[in-house]
């Protein structure tokens, strides 16, 4: 942990660094998307890449998510490693057919002869006053699509470490970036390109605890931490916080182990509750750990409505709501 080997970065900085490192490491890595070149992306995640690696490897695409993902699949088939940016996760839907019908199924349907290990990066989630179409959390759609890996970091170091693993992997990844966290916190991030990769797969126990497990990811990890701190200081409740990091494939053993220890479970996410990712966690527990459950599995989630603008602070899970859920499961 010598200071020489880390640098303090925002999540955006860490993502930008990961892209620089991987493009430098492997000339097959190319970046494409709307405004990713000269403009460095609307959030500046790709800042400086075009100047460094040229227009061939950092492409400003026409305004077509279908085209971005479809062409990325073709490039990947040819042997490149495309990292495609979808400007907001809300705009991933025009590419849904290419993702669900093609990207996810290419390896399986071709008996392994053709693969398309594209990484799709996209900012998601609320909390930036983006309203209806700049706040959605569509992760569940992709987790229900066999063949895709779905990854969501919650810290700058994880963002870098997971993105690098995604780019080096041979399977497609939908990489959701919690944009609320893009600039909000800083963290020491490794500077050695080969250091601190974070594997795709295992969940991460952010804080061990004994009374209740809370499963979360992205910007919700911090929300859960706040609630857990209050529960600890006010009520002496010991919360185990599990950051899923890889949503699909799910680390089933990891979440079951946590609940075997605590006997109580809460899931927190921003997406609408019905058929959201939390349902999979609950269902997995109801199937594999019911004998350990001492209380209902509670989902603290976004409302079953589109995402609002003015009242997003009511819509989104917040520490008070998570804290209430902790009280509820402890009192059951």
């Amino acid at each position, binding site marked *: 942990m010598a200071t020489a080997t880390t640098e303090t970065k925002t999540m955006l900085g860490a993502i930008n660094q990961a892209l620089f490192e991987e493009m430098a490491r492997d000339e097959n890595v190319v970046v494409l998307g709307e405004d990713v070149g000269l403009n460095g992306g609307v959030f500046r995640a790709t800042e400086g890449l075009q100047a460094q690696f040229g227009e061939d490897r950092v492409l400003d695409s026409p305004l077509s998510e279908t085209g971005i993902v479809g062409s990325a699949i073709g490039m990947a088939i040819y042997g490149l490693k495309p990292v495609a940016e979808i400007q907001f996760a809300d705009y991933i839907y025009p590419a849904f057919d290419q993702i669900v019908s093609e990207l996810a199924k290419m390896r399986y349907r071709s008996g392994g002869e053709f693969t398309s290990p594209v990484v799709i990066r996209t900012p998601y989630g609320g909390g930036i006053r983006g309203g209806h179409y700049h706040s959605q959390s569509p992760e569940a759609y992709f987790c229900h699509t066999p063949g895709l890996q779905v990854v969501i970091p919650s810290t700058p170091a994880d963002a870098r470490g997971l993105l690098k693993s995604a780019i080096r992997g041979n399977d497609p990844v939908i990489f959701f970036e919690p944009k609320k966290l893009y600039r909000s916190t800083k963290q020491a991030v490794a500077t050695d390109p080969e250091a601190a990769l974070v594997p795709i797969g295992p969940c991460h126990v952010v804080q061990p605890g004994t009374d209740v497990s809370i499963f979360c990811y992205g910007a919700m990890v911090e929300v859960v931490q706040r609630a857990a701190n209050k529960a600890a200081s006010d009520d002496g409740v010991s919360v185990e916080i599990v950051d899923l990091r890889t949503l699909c494939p799910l680390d089933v053993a990891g979440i079951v182990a946590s609940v075997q220890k605590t006997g109580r479970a809460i899931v927190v996410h921003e997406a609408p509750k019905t058929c959201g990712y939390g349902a999979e966690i609950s269902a997995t527990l109801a199937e594999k750990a019911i004998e350990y459950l001492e209380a209902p599995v509670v989902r603290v989630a976004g409302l079953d409505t*589109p995402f609002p603008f003015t009242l997003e602070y009511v819509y989104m899970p917040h520490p008070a709501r998570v804290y209430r859920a902790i009280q509820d499961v402890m009192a059951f």
Partner: protein
Amino acid sequence: MAQKTVSSSKKPIPHGLSADDCVAMYRAMVLTRAYDDRGFKLQRQGRIGFYAGSFGEEATQIGTAYAGDEADWYFTSYRQPGIALFRGLPLQTMMDNLFCNSRDVVKGRQMPVHYTGRQQHFLSVSSVIGTQIIQGVGCAMGIKIKGDRGVVFTYLGDGATSANDFHSGMNFAGVTKAPVIFVLVNNQYAISTPLSKQTAVEVLADKAKAYGFLGIQVDGNDVLAVYAAAMDAKRRAEAGEGPTLLELKTYRAGPHSSSDDPSRYRTEEQTQHWLERDPLTVLKNHMISFGIWDDTYETCFVEEANAMLGDAVKQAEAVGEPSWDTLFTDVYTYKSQTLADQEQDIMAHEQGLDLKNEGEFPL
């Protein structure tokens, strides 16, 4: 309203327009610009959350709005406030939208600049690029199926020509000969992406050739030319002669939105060059040549607009947030049990909590 500047050799006013029409157009363009100015200012002052303006594109809006009547429909993008205003969406309603307050027609659910005007046949604006294009065609198909009067003006940017919905919209319109006019506001940028990276075609109007109907390119900074082309397209649509792609060539003189910094991708000189053909100046020069210009227009209409705007801002700002129960309505015509439960839970436990301020929860 004061005396007119008399020009020595008057040109006749074309396209069947009167002096009053020209004045009305000028006034509407001034209002649009003043509205945009105010919008950006409010955003910079932190009083509203977001703004996207149409500075430099006023003629594209007023020229096409002027061609419409009550039976017609407007399916716009986020960059046509002038259309909403011209169609009679009250300024106060628009300002309430910018403040996303409790009087906002859409109950503070959408970002600012996403207007909705049922009565004005002004479709609820989406942020998603292009979706209104094929919807506008569907509306026009509906008009045709029911044998009604009316045409649909559906707006899109140069960037939106790359979208799926442009392709399906143009194609469905061609096949069905629905009474629709595609108003392609070619302001030469999609955020930072210049036209040359958007398409290899030189003239966007040529895209109509792929769909078997007429496409024409018009000077989008000349409101009279825009109006004439729109009237012509409308006449053809009404006569069952099919749709038209109307490329209005203009320039996005401001930033993409309040989140954008155009200096990253283009020069100030380029913008200044285009502003030499400011649509307000172009119309003013026309009016001078028609002998119907009055110097006071420049100041009066701006003052008039600013007075209205100041008033609307004051009123909009005086109104509070939408109440929490608005979170739970309009998802369906009814309230599902799931949603009722969620409402009940939040209302019972969170009303009164200072949710905006999470300070009480230590990290």
